[in-house]
């Protein structure tokens, strides 16, 4: 793993000609391990748009959604196509969690890491008409609620449910976590007052926040977001306090990145590292990051692998604490 990455990196840094030594010869397939319309899917389609608008690749880009088994199907598909340099997979924390919570014979080490493009924050969202003003209000209400307050998120045994469990443990409350097919569906359920809160990503609640149907209480990040432009009314992403500031000491962020199948050549890997580097420098990409309040964090090569190793350990601890870890 490491030697191959090393080669890729030197190839990338050493000479431009090496980076251009390999070019795709047919359509590039980006496999999205979640259903259409979700945050991963939006990112893939934005990248598709940017690449084609700016003519960064001569070949077309095809997006393929493989949502089955919480992305497990997509991961197995990539694992089953070693050496196929016309396939990419978008990843989130699911790349650690899906294998850990199921018996699927796959890990991220079966793939070739290309680049981390950003980190995604999570917020605690309530209906626009909700009486809660702060995370503290929410916790107080949860303490006396019977039946427990309903918190919605994407899927089961994944990041949203981990957040819900972390809130329960930290604040000593009981919540009813309700899994949805995607963040969009959860957001609509929140707007319709069928849920008390969601732990959605900013992108998943953006449209409803702007229209006033939903509202953030706090963000589960170490520090506040940086985007200061007004989003809803005079509120900006940077105005949302962190949950820790409000006494709910839970923080979690999720990587968003790209992987390739294993056993690709260093030139092929370098081509994509270079491609995504260029994507990440476009104005469109920066606008996309701002619109979705993603934390800009481009990493490739060794720094990316280091990040993955540390993040994997963190998720293993979280899942084991929640009792979701499956012994293989």
């Amino acid at each position: 793993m490491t030697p191959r990455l090393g080669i890729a990196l030197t190839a990338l840094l050493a000479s431009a000609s090496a980076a251009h030594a390999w070019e795709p010869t047919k359509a590039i397939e980006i496999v999205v391990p979640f259903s259409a319309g979700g945050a991963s899917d939006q990112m893939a389609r934005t990248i598709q748009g940017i690449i084609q608008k700016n003519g960064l690749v001569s070949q077309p880009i095809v997006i393929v959604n493989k949502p089955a088994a919480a992305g497990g199907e997509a991961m197995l598909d990539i694992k089953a196509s070693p050496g196929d340099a016309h396939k990419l997979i978008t990843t989130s924390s699911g790349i650690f969690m899906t294998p850990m919570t199921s018996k699927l014979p796959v890990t991220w080490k079966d793939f070739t890491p290309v680049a981390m493009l950003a980190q995604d924050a999570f917020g605690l969202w309530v209906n626009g008409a909700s009486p809660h003003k702060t995370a503290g209000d929410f916790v107080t209400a949860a303490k006396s609620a019977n039946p427990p307050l309903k918190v919605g998120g994407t899927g089961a045994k994944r990041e949203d449910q981990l957040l819900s469990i972390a809130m329960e443990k930290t604040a000593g409350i009981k919540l009813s976590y309700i899994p949805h097919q995607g963040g969009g569906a959860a957001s609509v359920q929140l707007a319709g007052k069928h849920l008390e809160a969601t732990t959605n990503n900013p992108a998943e609640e953006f449209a409803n926040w702007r229209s006033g149907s939903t509202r953030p209480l706090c963000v589960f990040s170490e520090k506040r977001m940086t985007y200061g432009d007004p989003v809803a009314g005079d509120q900006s992403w940077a105005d949302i306090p962190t949950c820790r500031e409000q006494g709910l000491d839970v923080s979690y962020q999720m990587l968003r990145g790209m992987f390739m199948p294993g056993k690709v050549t260093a030139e092929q890997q370098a081509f994509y590292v270079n491609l995504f580097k260029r994507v990440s420098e476009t104005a469109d990409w920066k606008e996309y990051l701002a619109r979705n309040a993603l934390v800009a964090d481009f990493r490739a090569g060794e720094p990316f692998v280091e990040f993955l190793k540390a993040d994997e350990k963190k998720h293993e601890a979280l899942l084991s604490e929640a009792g979701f870890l499956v012994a293989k």
Partner: protein
Amino acid sequence: MSSTVAGPERGLSRRAVEATVAAFLILLALLALWDSYGRGAGWDNGPENGFFPARVAWLFLGASVLVLVNSVRQPDQLLVTWKQLGLVARVLGPLVAFVAMIDHLGIYVSSAVFIVLFMVVVGASRWWSILLTAAIVPVVCFLIFETQFGVPLPKGPVEALLGY
């Protein structure tokens, strides 16, 4: 291929097929029950994930047993004659061969072989129309799916030789 001249036509008995299918369905129901109870089919603050499959499987089991019992009790009939079954086999045979070939030869070459096989087995076609169909269909499929719409289909050694 010759049908019996005297007496009723011979073939598969309805009772036998009905009973076999019912027995197979009972097996499926037991499999589903085993899996559901293995994962938990109770009620734990709401149904567990085996709750509904288990209930459905019980119903399924009951209905299948009923069909099995009925099949034995009812008078037997002819379900399908051997001749009809022979005709079906002449379609099914090439089809199975086709699907088996796809993994090794890719879908385009397999299609050509399948068309030839099918048309020869079914008969009633001149040799030139067979060859023409076998040549045109895969090429048109290739042009539409592979080149125009960019939908990748399984390809084998022949396509690789041609650089795809």
